[in-house]
């Protein structure tokens, strides 16, 4: 089922006054798509999921399931969660502790007044799909985290929902299990052909699961694109500084002149600009020549070429990951992360570097983006 959101926004009223949880936003999610909502906490991703589920009413805008409007703020139309036939999987599993697995999975069907034999057949089928048939008579408290999540997913898919909503479903699992469940979720979603919307703050999860990923920040949609596009063409410095492990280095820079050449001054070094890179940098810079540069760790170069000036840095930390090593460098006030094949670095060691500016992205400077760019 296709999902359309038009001009949707959400405001809450709290003791401190009006809180804009979600700025006006348009989204189209295709039938059968695995769509991921990615963002840090407070980005509005869960609010968006709740709006789609019908757990919250939008302050403005319309939501359509297929051609059917399910929420329209102007016409005061609002279909309740029960009427929307959506399934929800929670981070905390939210299994009913007083029911065994069989009754947990059967619960939505029982509420929908299905006939007993039909319920039994559907429960059996869902249990087989998730290979939990031998757990059917166990109580939730007797199950491990992974088993609980399987039961929760079985309960979600058992009545063939038109929309599959997942709110950080893997966050409570250990890293190894998370990998397996991730693969299985994707397989399951393909097999059932249900449109899935998946909320996470983990960009690795988002990139590996999503057909498309929407990056949200402070209630605002930053970019909605396939994973590779997010990585290669981040639409904002925030996206660049959020996607990738480790994410891109977002640095403040200024344009200037040196010995008659146009240069980009960043982290204490100046780099000659020419051609297409020059045009992109000019386009991004403000009147004072200030701009933001996003450089991926793999585009930080250890061997400066002859015509480039270099950036003097000091090694802050070294994290050997086996195949590669993550090295954090201090250059003036900036911290630059790089990924290198070698591992023989010492903390405190001086290391001259350079940037491959052809692969860098340039953005107009914004004070708030500067504040968050050092998280990496």
């Amino acid at each position, binding site marked *: 089922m296709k999902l359309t959101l038009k001009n949707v926004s959400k405001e809450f009223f709290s003791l401190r006054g009006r809180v804009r949880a979600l700025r006006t936003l348009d989204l189209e999610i295709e039938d059968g798509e695995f769509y991921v909502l990615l963002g840090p906490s407070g980005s509005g991703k869960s609010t968006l999921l709740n709006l789609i589920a019908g757990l919250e009413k939008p302050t403005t805008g319309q939501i359509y399931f297929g051609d059917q409007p399910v929420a329209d703020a102007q016409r005061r139309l609002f279909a309740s969660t*029960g009427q929307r036939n959506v399934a929800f999987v929670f981070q*905390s599993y939210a299994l009913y502790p*007083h029911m065994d697995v069989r009754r947990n999975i059967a619960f*939505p069907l029982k*509420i*929908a007044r299905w006939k007993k034999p039909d319920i039994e057949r559907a429960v059996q089928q869902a249990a087989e799909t998730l290979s939990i048939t031998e757990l059917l008579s166990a109580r939730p408290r007797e199950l491990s985290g992974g088993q609980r999540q399987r039961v929760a997913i079985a309960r979600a898919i058992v009545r063939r929902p038109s929309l599959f909503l997942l709110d950080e479903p893997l966050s409570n699992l250990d890293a190894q299990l998370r990998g397996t469940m991730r693969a299985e979720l994707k397989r399951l979603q393909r097999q059932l052909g249900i449109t899935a919307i998946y909320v996470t703050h983990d960009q690795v999860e988002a990139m590996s699961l999503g057909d498309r990923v929407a990056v949200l920040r402070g209630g605002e949609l930053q970019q909605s694109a396939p994973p590779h596009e997010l990585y290669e063409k981040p639409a904002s410095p925030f996206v660049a500084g959020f996607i990738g492990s480790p994410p891109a280095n977002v640095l403040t820079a200024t344009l200037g002149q040196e010995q008659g050449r146009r240069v980009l001054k960043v982290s204490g070094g100046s780099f000659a600009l020419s051609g297409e890179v020059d045009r992109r940098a000019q386009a991004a810079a403000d009147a004072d020549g200030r701009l933001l540069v996003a450089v991926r760790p793999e585009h930080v170069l250890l061997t400066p070429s002859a015509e480039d000036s270099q950036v003097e840095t000091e090694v802050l930390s070294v994290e050997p990951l086996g195949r590669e090593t993550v090295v954090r460098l201090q250059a003036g006030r900036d911290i630059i992360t790089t990924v290198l094949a070698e591992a023989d670095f010492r903390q405190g060691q001086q290391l001259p570097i350079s940037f491959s500016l052809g692969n860098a992205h340039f953005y107009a400077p914004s004070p708030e983006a500067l504040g968050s760019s050092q998280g990496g």
Partner: protein
Amino acid sequence: MNERRLQIILLVAGTVLVFAFSLAPFFYMALVSFSADHEFLAHGVEFEPTADHYEAVLTGSSLHFLDYLRNSLIVSALSAAGAVMFSALAAFAITRLALPGKLGILFFVLIVSMFPQIGIVGYLFKLMSSLGWINTYMALVLPYIAWTLPLSLWVLVGYFSQIPRELDIAATVDGCNRWQILWRIIIPVAAPGMFSVFLLAFIFAFNEFMFALMLTTDASARTVPVGIALFQGLHGQTPWGDIMAASVITTLPVIVLALIFQRRIISGLTQGAVKG
């Protein structure tokens, strides 16, 4: 070494003293109930074991003890059931619905529960008289429900607020309305809390004296505590043996209940106390 021995001696002595102090009345009660003469402690009176008092209490129709016991059980069960029902609804509203002034309601209820019982007895008597309910079960059940509601409410609010909100949302997504959420999810999950509330309310109603004294007139509705207090002996004597035998019989079920479910009662009380 000596200091340690002294500690142990003091501890044992203190424990014995506390036990003796609190259990001596019960011991005396049990002894008298089995004694032919209640003044067996007096000089020159022998302790003569007998079961006569129990026989009199359980079979003698003039004392109406079995009627009182039946009244007590029915009144206590109805009151406890009512308290559980109303406090469950109220606790659901307070923990789950968008209700303005929740804390205000909770504290108001708490303050009301501190009013002295005697303060409303007069009004209650007039009310029940005008309703024609004096000497009926309803005359006791309704005040008992009201009287146990604050404690029940606080205990259940503690239980309900510990149930994660995700369960409500999951049930909503699964198609439940609010009523179904309460019946199918909240109440079963909070079953231990419901049970302790039932037990507490039951024991309270079972022990209550003043309302029962004022609002009942004879064996058709009078409960055990009042009934025992009003036991009449031949020639106007106080029938101590019968009174004690009846007291033992009434105390036993409460002790048994409390022993079996002590953990639940305590956890129910503390949960209500800790989580507001």
